[in-house]
């Protein structure tokens, strides 16, 4: 009843108009409603500040235009008058009132910040590593995202997709391997720098999936790198997929290891995308940030340290994957980090087989070893025992 009475009055239509304007402004500045509880808090604070902005701006500019209309020089003979040169109460008022208005902005900014920083103890922890120019992820059981890569921009630069559980707090523990990056999730209205030699963290609570989300198999959010990091800064993105808790558990279990029946060549091609090799090395023969893998095996190259003529063989590949900084091919930057400790022996061997398979110089007969399955590989490794 109250509501009806209000909406029929002029005040009611004004407040409806304002509410509409509020929603319109909010939709202008945010694509979607926030995807976490902290995001909603930030949006509300944003809109509070927005209203202070709008009211102050309209009032101040209104005064200026009014003064211009009334006191422009053409009206000098009518309106130009001596006036006070200062007014202490007025000046005190316009110093103190803004201060009071700012107290809630400061206070809720602070509480929201604390909320975004302090993850609950039961949060799902995911390790995030940034390097020029891709993100890698690692789950509590050691699993790393495999398989799906997506194109966010149209520049043919694939970025990884990783999953988080809906309805469970998620804490990211992050570090960088080279320069400073920043992990920015616009839909969650938060970001944090990712710094070399140091861990930073952020957390969020992904809202449970709606029916619509479920029908699409999950909800997608974009991640950007927000701290300038060089040539592919603008392509250094990731896609976060919010999935149900059971699906999350099943997927990271499945990701802990490679499928036992896959052969090493298959594993190598998966490592190629999962570890982000493909962001610098093409397999098509095109030059990218790094040399292409097409026909690399069995070829010779020149290096910035003066070495030349060394044939690319299995040993060369192993050494240059694990200790990339040791020798740099002429004409290429020094951006590739050392991969020692970041790849399992299986992954290194699989990569070598894969690169070998990309060369025309390799005869099909030479690839037989690459047809070994993961299961066979592991059994062999086990039988070699501790001597290996």
């Amino acid at each position, binding site marked *: 009843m109250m509501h009806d009475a209000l909406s029929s009055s002029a005040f009611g239509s004004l407040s409806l108009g304002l509410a509409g304007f509020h929603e319109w402004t909010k939709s202008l500045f945010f694509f979607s409603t926030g995807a976490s509880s902290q995001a909603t808090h930030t949006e509300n604070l944003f809109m509070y500040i927005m209203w202070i902005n709008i009211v102050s701006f309209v009032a101040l500019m209104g005064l200026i235009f009014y003064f211009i209309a009334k006191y*422009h020089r053409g009206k000098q003979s009518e309106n130009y008058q001596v006036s006070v040169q200062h007014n202490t109460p007025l000046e005190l008022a316009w110093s103190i009132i803004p201060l009071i208005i700012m107290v809630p902005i400061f206070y809720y900014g602070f509480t929201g910040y604390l909320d975004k920083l302090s993850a609950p103890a039961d949060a799902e922890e995911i390790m995030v590593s940034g390097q020029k120019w891709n993100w890698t992820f690692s789950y509590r059981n050691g699993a790393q995202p495999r398989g799906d890569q997506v194109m966010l921009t149209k520049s043919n630069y694939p970025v990884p997709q990783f999953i988080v559980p809906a309805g469970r707090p998620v804490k990211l523990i992050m570090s960088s391997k080279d320069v400073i990056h920043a992990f920015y999730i616009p839909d969650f209205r938060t970001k944090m720098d990712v710094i070399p030699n140091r861990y930073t963290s952020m957390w969020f609570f992904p809202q449970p999936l709606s029916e619509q989300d479920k029908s699409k198999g999950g909800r997608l959010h974009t991640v950007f790198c927000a701290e300038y990091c060089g040539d592919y800064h603008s392509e250094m993105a990731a896609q976060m997929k919010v999935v149900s808790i059971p699906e999350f558990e099943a997927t990271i279990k499945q990701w802990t290891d490679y499928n036992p029946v896959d052969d090493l060549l298959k594993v190598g091609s998966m490592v190629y995308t999962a570890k982000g090799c493909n962001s610098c090395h093409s397999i098509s023969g095109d030059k990218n940030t790094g040399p292409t893998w097409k026909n690399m095996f069995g070829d010779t190259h020149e290096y910035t340290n003066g070495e030349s003529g060394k044939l690319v063989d299995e040993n060369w590949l192993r050494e240059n994957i694990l200790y990339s900084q040791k020798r740099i091919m002429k004409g290429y930057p020094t951006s590739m980090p050392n991969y020692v400790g970041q790849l399992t022996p299986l992954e290194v061997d699989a990569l070598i087989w894969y690169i070998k398979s990309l060369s025309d110089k390799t005869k099909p007969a030479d690839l037989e070893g690459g047809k070994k399955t993961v299961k066979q590989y592991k059994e062999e490794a086990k039988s070699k025992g501790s001597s290996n």
Partner: protein
Amino acid sequence: MATIGDIHKSGLPHHGHAHGHDHHGSYLERKGGMIVTIWDWMTTVDHKKIGVMYLFAILFMFFLGGVAALVVRTELLQPNVATVAASGSVTYSGNLIGHAFGQGENIAKSNEFYNRAMTLHGVIMVFLVIVPSVPASLGNFLLPLMLGAKDVAFPRLNLASWYVYLLGSIFAIISIVQGGVDTGWTFYTPYSTTTDAAYYNVVWMVTAAFILGFSSIFTGLNFVVTVHKLRAPGMGWFDMPLFVWGIYGAAIIQVLATPVIGITLLLLIFERLFHIGIFDPRMGGDPVLFQHFFWFYSHPVVYVMILPGMAVINEMIATGARKPIFGYRAVAFSTLAIAGISFIVWGHHLFTSEGEVAAVVFSALTFLVAIPSAVKVFNWISTLYKGSISMATWNLYALAFLWLFTIGGLTGLFLGSLAVDLHLHDTYFVVAHFHYVMMGGTIIAFIGAIHFWWPKMFGKMYNEFWARIAFFLVFIGFNATFFPQFVMGSQGMPRRYANYVDVFQPYHFASTIGSYILALGFFLHLFVFLHSLAAGRKAGPNPWGSLTLEWTNASSPPIEHNFDHEPVVTHGPYDYDNVIPPQTAPGEFVLPKPAAVAIKH
């Protein structure tokens, strides 16, 4: 101290009968042939000539930085779209700049080109344009004139600062010619200590910034001493024009903060050249330390940029409304308050660096610094009340400053609020915010001020009609360029991106078109100024009816020694209620009607 005393004895006009000339020529008068004239300018210690040389150098650098900005905006007109042929080879379209430089097939090269243009724009605009803009050009020209002095306190140091500026610019140009740098103007480590490892561009550019710092320190020191020691008889601290207060506040920051960036950049150079681990964690350094050092200078320097902008606004608003500045003392003290608080807010650039709870202190202080800035805006608007508001181009710029700076200041509230900053930090929202403050504030004030003092500097009037057209182009272009950036920023568009996802395209498109309109406005201004120099109407000594000393006691352009006789201050700089501006035609300017109700002062 002895030096200052000597200048007093030998140099100041009230001892100046010794010069014994009744007629002094304009400072622009040529002393002889071309070579003599050039030598005269190169070796001059006249603050006016040094100011004019700075003005042209800064405007040239503004042109270079502007071209870099247009390159950046053009690159962002469309996102890069890759087409993968059946053979697997990739071509990129939408990559206008990449294509123009023959790099259309290689996104890495095209992104790298963008990063260099973006850095070039930032470095030039900050270190070579905005920091020196108002103080080095107009400050040099006007400070002694406004104080009734013959020159600044240390004229030779002043000339030295100009040559140091030139030297710094040469280092920057050497770096650019070698291919430029891709670090961003902030030189964040460890990116800046590792990028282009085989080249010395970064070292050249950082050295340029290091050298330019000394130019800034020399000028600041000179101004502080000048304001303290060389005020005309009768001019107390609160009789100084507010322009002087603003320049004084900025000069104090320049002297105190610039050494910090000097040592920081030196450490950066040492790390690059000699691999001393200070900032790079691989050598045991701390990358976040650099951010603290850098912003400990670079936040105060934001106020070195804005205080002189506010300083010229005071003069234009008072003359433009023919009113005393409302709350003179509040404005003067606000200037000092801003200068003081500016030293303790640097941490607000690091809210996302580590997520320290200590950020709360910096957030609180940041809101505190908003108050004196807001007070100034309120005072300026109140000054218009019952005034006689001029619609000359320079006053349109002053009014546009109020519009743009208010947007810049208000949007700072979003960024000072910790939770909201985690979302907006390093997005286009920040880019828009600081362009509204730095460009909408300082550059807009600077362009307005050049119009305002143009007749005094060169003795010529400019074409008011075309200048106004140019003003409207600049104003509309500016808002069209930067307002969409607020929107895309809060929608999630990170800054320093050579490429972007499709949803941001409409905003980038609007922004780029806006930047073209803006450029058109600036070019029109350039033509108006060139036309004025070539064929402008001769200016009277006080065309705008101002009351500060450079208008009331000096000719246009001023004579070489500024004043025929040392001026004695008999009225306040804004005493429009009681004094008809001297050196104006009778009836050209009138006194206001007495207040309807008697006013108690």
